[in-house]
């Protein structure tokens, strides 16, 4: 069902946890299957310097979150904003069709985190 990359990210997820001094926090979830992701970013010079995630969900959800954090670390936030869920799935070498809809939402959490960061910047 899941390929080895997915299993690897599920088993050894990268960048798990919270960032207490996060510059942006984004959340997303699927009502249907209950999956929930929270993404924390630390931004420096418009670049994502650090990133952490917490995910409640199935194997695909956890692996997608983990893969996303790897993909964005060090990236400019403008570029990070362009990352799609499909790209995350592709980076994982593909996900089962059923999982594409509801468990592959990490990019959404990231976008929400970036928006949160921008809002906080605007506010400060």
């Amino acid at each position, binding site marked *: 069902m*899941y390929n080895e990359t997915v*299993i690897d990210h*599920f*088993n050894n*997820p990268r960048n*798990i*946890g*919270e960032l207490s001094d996060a510059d942006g926090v984004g*959340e997303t979830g699927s009502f*249907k*299957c*209950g*999956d*929930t*992701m*929270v993404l924390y970013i630390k931004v420096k010079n418009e670049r994502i310097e650090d990133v952490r*995630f*917490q*995910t*409640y*969900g*199935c*194997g695909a*959800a*956890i692996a997608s979150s983990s893969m996303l954090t790897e993909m964005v670390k060090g990236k400019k936030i403008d570029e990070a904003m362009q990352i799609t869920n499909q790209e995350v799935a592709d980076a994982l070498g593909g996900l089962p069709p*059923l999982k594409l*809809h*509801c468990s592959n939402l990490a990019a959404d959490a990231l976008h929400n985190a970036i928006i949160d960061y921008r809002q906080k910047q605007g506010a400060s």
Partner: protein
Amino acid sequence: MQNQLVYMDHGATTPVRKEVVDSMLPFFQEQYGNPSSLHTPGRKVRQAVDEAREKTAQALGADPEDIYFTSGGTESNNIAMRGTAKNRSGGGHIITSSIEHHAVFDVCRDLENEGYKVTYLPVDQFGRVSPEMVRKAIKPDTFIISIMAANNEIGTLQPIREIGSLAGELGILFHTDAVQVVGQLPVNVDDLNVDFLSLSAHKFNGPKGIGALYVRKGVKVDSIYRGGSQERKMRPGTENVPGIIGLSRALELAVSDIPKKKKRLEALRDELIGGLLRIDDVVLNGHPEQRLPGNVNVSFKHIEGESVLLSLDMEGIAASSGSACSSGSLEPSHVLSATGLDQSTAHGSVRFSLGWGNSKEDVDYVLQKVPSIVERLRNISPTYHSR
């Protein structure tokens, strides 16, 4: 990854016993005749099928002529429900529960669309239907009641005997989906007072793709498809002879093992439940006592069932989350929702279903592995941290 396999998914399917495979083998290459054929090789096979029918009937306290072999529990359920409805022109009322298997539930939904009325009875927090509720739901045009003998997900046993005598009293047909119970607990169609009973061989160490429907003599039910005159036209098509032989042998063995198997599985089950409940934030789903001997269903709060299954699988433990049949679905289980479990707890449910092959070592192994799996996943989970 490791190689040891601890199979705790007997609610989904079971290995076929060697004796059962052995009983089937002669019917592939040697006794391959068509039981409908007039010639000796055909007639010999007919005789074997007749004997299998007798054995099957005997295991259920039924008459051989009341047993119809089908392709499995799904088909049996469909024949009982749709075949009975078809025989009534002009609709009528059906009573069922809100936790039936899809093979009953979805037929009822179809029948609703076709103009029948259906009451889906609620269950209590343990997944029990109350006979009193059944009585209250009865309308003048109620023609069938269908309540499963035990639920496949949470293992809750239903008060079938009580509902049966109620149905009998009022002259309403009564079907029970006993797919999870046959071969696990004693079943007698007269004692339960059922008019229809569905079973599936692969749930009691028989082969997949073969089941049976008991239909009480005199009860009218139409077939759901047409063809030759096999199974007295109730279930046309060349008989799955090896399957029929295997079903009857598996049932005979399973029933004779019940006394010792039941005790053994109940002890293992309770030990596993006890061990799992020692972990924080774990709840038992289903009834604490009125449950299948091998069924353990718990919810690990803050984490999701599939991720637990995946982690268990990597330790060589095979379990399931909800019904195996609906594992392709993303919806939370209708069974757990019906018991009133909140959605997120429902998502964290895992079923360990024990069978003949499981040992105390298996239970110990599972209890040794689960806590660290749960801890690891909870560490990733946002809801656990935000408590």
